[in-house]
């Protein structure tokens, strides 16, 4: 499987001891990081599709705006900026059950 490259780290990861699945692709992460930092590091900014079908990305970076909602290990609407990475975590962006329900 192809590994997503982290292109925006200010300094290289000292130890990339964690691997996540981001939309089905592997990406490396370090202990302590938030899911948002990993998404930012690979340059992925369209994170959520809100209940009104609008795309959204991280906005406040501190847990208050609820614009960075992604699905984590199958649970929807988790804040990327408030979630610390774990090995094997599955992260999916732009999922929205309300909007998808309406479309089908």
């Amino acid at each position, binding site marked *: 499987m192809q590994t997503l490259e982290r292109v*925006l*780290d*200010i*300094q290289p*990861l*000292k*130890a990339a001891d964690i691997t996540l699945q981001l939309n089905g692709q592997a990406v490396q992460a*370090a*202990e*302590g*990081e*938030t899911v*948002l*930092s990993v998404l*930012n*590091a690979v*340059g992925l*900014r*369209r*994170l959520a599709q*809100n209940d*009104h079908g*609008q*795309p*959204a*990305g*991280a*906005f*406040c*970076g*501190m*847990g*208050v*705006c*609820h*614009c960075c*909602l992604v699905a984590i290990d199958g649970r929807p*609407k988790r804040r990327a900026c*408030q979630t*610390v990475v774990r090995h094997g975590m599955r992260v999916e962006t732009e999922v929205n059950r309300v909007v998808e329900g309406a479309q089908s």
Partner: protein
Amino acid sequence: MSLRPVIVGGGSAGMAAAIELAEQGVDCLLFDEASRPGGVVYRGPLRAGVDLGYLGARYSKALQTLHEDFAANAEHIDLRLNHRVVGGDTERLMVLDADEQLHEIDYSHLLLSAGCHERNVPFPGWTLPGVMLLGGLQLQIKSGAVKPLGSTLIAGTGPLLPLVACQLHAAGAKVAGVYEACAFNRIAKESLALLNKPQLFLDGLSMLAYMKLNGIAMHYGWGLVSASGEGELREVSLAPYGQDWKADMSRVRREPVDTLAVGYGFIPRTQLSQQLGLTHGFSDDGYLRAVCNVWQQSSQAHIHLAGDMGGIRGGEAAMLTGRIAAVSILQQRGVLDANQAIERRERYLGKLAAITRFRAGVERYTQRGAAQIELPQADTVICRCEHVTRSDIDLALEQGVQDMASLKMRTRVSMGDCQGRMCVGYCSDRLRASTGRADVGWLRPRFPIDPIPFSAFQHLATEA
């Protein structure tokens, strides 16, 4: 008294308070929803092995000192990270732990030091991915150790703009320019007040020198008009602002950028202070904040406030107010007598006075222009969670809505996930402008103040 003092929020204010208590041998219980203490200014990188050189020597030193002081007192501080306080009353708090279980925590003395969030100023295109609040972007550089995509344009007002520009540049990111909405002569007029904190003033000057040296342009009296792009930000439009911040649309300039950071200041977090029933008042900038006396006591003497929660004054002031609150708690518990407490308080107040004068100068020059509320167009979204547009708000005001509660009922603003934290500033500005009143109410928090899963109640139920 058997119960330990409880502190909500381990930022500059909460950490300083915990240290002051510990120095007198008093144990405390400190909750923070983040995974590391430090708050928005001093959380530091979340991963190991980051060299903080790009944030400046003075900052790295201050960060290190605070964390060392805190660690030296660790035996007295029961630090519960990843714990979010989601509600409470004057005797107990509801706390969601890292495993998403809810707990009831009784307290006798409480310090609220949960900080602030940024003021969101809506304009056409603000919801595009790639547009971020300035402090939020700064957190990604400081704690995430990640650069933003492409080149970044910074717009808004206040000293955080050049600071983040320098930090971004030093981190290796491209800065497309800084647009300070207020005119240069207004800042120059405040230089006397700003000299109350010579070091901060000098830091400001050296930031400008750094920017000049590195070719980062500083545009005074220029501000945002709109942002655009297909699905993501690609371009920002700017124009010269008049005294009241009305954009001169005959001179619009378009800048191709990938990231836009917008900073118009802060709004204290009042969800908890409101839920606890404390007395509140409004600041000159129009935001709600709990009121406190010279001991940092709220309208309930056993509940204290420190840091941004009592009004925005920056990290250094947050530490001093945290220390004063701790001194008050120490006196209430009989650890210090009245004379000892007053002597300590006066020492901290003396240091606070210069900061207060400095901040007053900053507040005067960063005072937002009245025309700012005209930035959104009819179809610009104001409340993103409930998709309420400017025209919905205009209509409600035309129909005679005069306060926040009625605006909420009429338009659904604030009924979504963020509970109005991102639209409250704009809604309050509009209501105040249309009614001419200073008090148009504020958004009331719901319980829980942050979403919690149903399973969180399991533990509580078994305890009961």
